[in-house]
């Protein structure tokens, strides 16, 4: 082994140097490209801390003055403080995660493991509804929820999550359960556990990776979701963070850019924290499922 590598080095010194040079060039190119890609984000972060009048006059990312004024002003820019919107977003996001974990795992277990008549048809429907654009459903859903008097509440956002309508997660979990050895289920059955105990004590604990992926993507999608809250939430008090940002844009003035940047930046912080903590699962999740 040693002599082999040594032999290589001695017999061909030029290619090694060439390879190192090529790698260095590659890294330089890539780093320049990363800087170019990330520059807008860095600019936003720095601008949020600049006095408003300097943001659009200085394109650089090294600020001459630092201030927290944008955050103070932005926090109270609408007729409710941003703490209200953050709490609203958090409530909706956490409840959505709970809804998806509950309803999708129940559905997936039944579709993957239990024998019943409509099984194949149900699975086909689930697959087909992954493709269904939300826009053909939203108008009747809106009429339905508004006739129940649920506009400006979070029920229209949450009820679908508790009814397993995010078909992609059902599909993801079904595929995952299918990889678990059936012997485990059988052993539990022989020990006298029914489907419910088997699900709760055997399958659910083994599904952890699929549950983590579902949690991560439900978090990101719900936190960023704009279309659905925009439709249902019209009172400032009920706004989630994206809807609040949108209503700041509507009333934007030149001095408002700083506040907009400050609040936009804050709105991304929970996602960035999630990214830092769950990065490993996130990358694996996209690689295996193709989610964004």
């Amino acid at each position, binding site marked *: 082994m040693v002599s082999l590598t040594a032999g290589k080095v001695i017999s061909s010194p030029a290619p090694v140097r060439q390879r190192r040079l090529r*790698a260095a060039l590659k*890294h330089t190119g*890539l780093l320049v490209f*990363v800087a170019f*890609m*990330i520059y*807008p*984000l860095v*600019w*936003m972060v720095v601008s949020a801390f600049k006095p408003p009048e300097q*943001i*659009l*006059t200085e*394109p650089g990312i090294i600020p001459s003055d630092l201030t927290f004024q944008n955050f103070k002003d932005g926090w109270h820019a609408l007729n409710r403080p941003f703490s209200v919107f953050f709490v609203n977003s958090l409530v909706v996001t956490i409840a959505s995660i709970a809804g998806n974990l509950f309803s999708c795992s*129940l*559905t997936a277990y*039944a579709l993957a493991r*239990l*024998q*019943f008549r409509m099984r194949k048809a*149900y699975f086909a*429907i689930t697959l087909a*509804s992954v493709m*269904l*654009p*939300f*826009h*053909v*459903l939203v*108008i*009747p*859903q*809106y*009429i339905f929820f508004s006739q129940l008097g649920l506009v400006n509440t979070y029920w229209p956002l949450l*009820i*679908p999550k*508790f*009814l*397993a309508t995010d078909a992609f997660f059902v599909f993801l979990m079904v595929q995952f359960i299918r990889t678990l050895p059936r012997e485990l289920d059988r052993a539990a*059955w022989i020990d006298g556990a029914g*489907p*419910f105990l088997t699900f709760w004590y055997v399958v659910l604990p083994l599904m952890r990776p699929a549950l983590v992926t579902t949690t991560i993507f439900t978090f990101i999608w719900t936190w*960023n979701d704009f*279309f659905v809250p*925009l439709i249902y939430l019209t009172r400032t008090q009920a706004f989630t963070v994206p809807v609040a*940002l*949108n209503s700041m*844009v*509507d009333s934007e003035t030149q001095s408002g850019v700083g506040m*907009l*940047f400050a609040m*936009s930046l804050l709105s*991304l912080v929970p996602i960035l924290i999630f990214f830092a903590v769950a*990065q490993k699962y*996130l*990358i694996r999740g*996209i*690689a*295996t499922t*193709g989610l964004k």
Partner: protein
Amino acid sequence: MTSRSRFYLNRQGRAAHVFLIPWQLGFLLITAVPLLASLYLAFTNYDILNPPEWTGLENFQRMIHDDQFWASVRVTLIYVLVSVPLQLAFALLLALILDRGLSGLAFYRSAFYLPSLLGSSVAIAILWREIFGDDGLINKGLALIGIHGESWLQNPSTALATLIVLNVWTFGSPMVIFLAGLRQIPDELYEAARVDGAGIVKQFRHVTVPLLTPIIFFNLILQTIGAFQTFTQAHIISGGTGGPANSTLFYTLYIYQQGFVAFDMGYASALAWVLMAAIAVVTALHFLVSKYWVFYGDS
């Protein structure tokens, strides 16, 4: 079948119905009934206050003479046809550069993925407004080299381009999928190709590309369906108007305007069904054409 196993089947059937209560309710109330209801509404005039009034094909005839409808079709098609291939090209190129034994893969992967994670948020759309605005980052940069730039957002011929750039910027998520796909290609195939005298280019053409076609196809379908439904960015960039001169009037933004601003819910339903038909046709075409270029190892 013994009576014992029939007992278990019955028991499983009964359990399945309990497990599936949420799904069945959801399918009925959130999917099936709304789907049929919007199909019905597509043939009516409905403003939510008065009961729907059957108008037959009127909504669809109205589309033919509706300039805004055609503008939104044009904007959406240009966006899909330009931004999806560009985004996937970047994703594939970067995946290829990162794939073969380069150190620091995890760092680059995270850095390139970050925009995908944030890209669909209102915050990033706001950032884009300021980057491409009159006094924005781009024009400040151009001013440094002596070019005076106009507002990219107020100009109908460049406003859509800024959104295409935004979509290309989020190439990280297809890139991660490509990287996973490249990992699956066995090293032996490259070695065999080298032994047969294939250079880098030939290896790429005859090993990498054919084995990656299923992943390319998967990304293409996923990103195309997503691009058809772009809403947030267009709404924020144009303040909900789709302007200037309808140049960012994405199809879903037009549905939103008709349904939830003008409360013309019959027409909005008809528009939504046209979108669904378009997505179905495009996806079906992709699958048909895929027979000629996607390579599944077994054939």
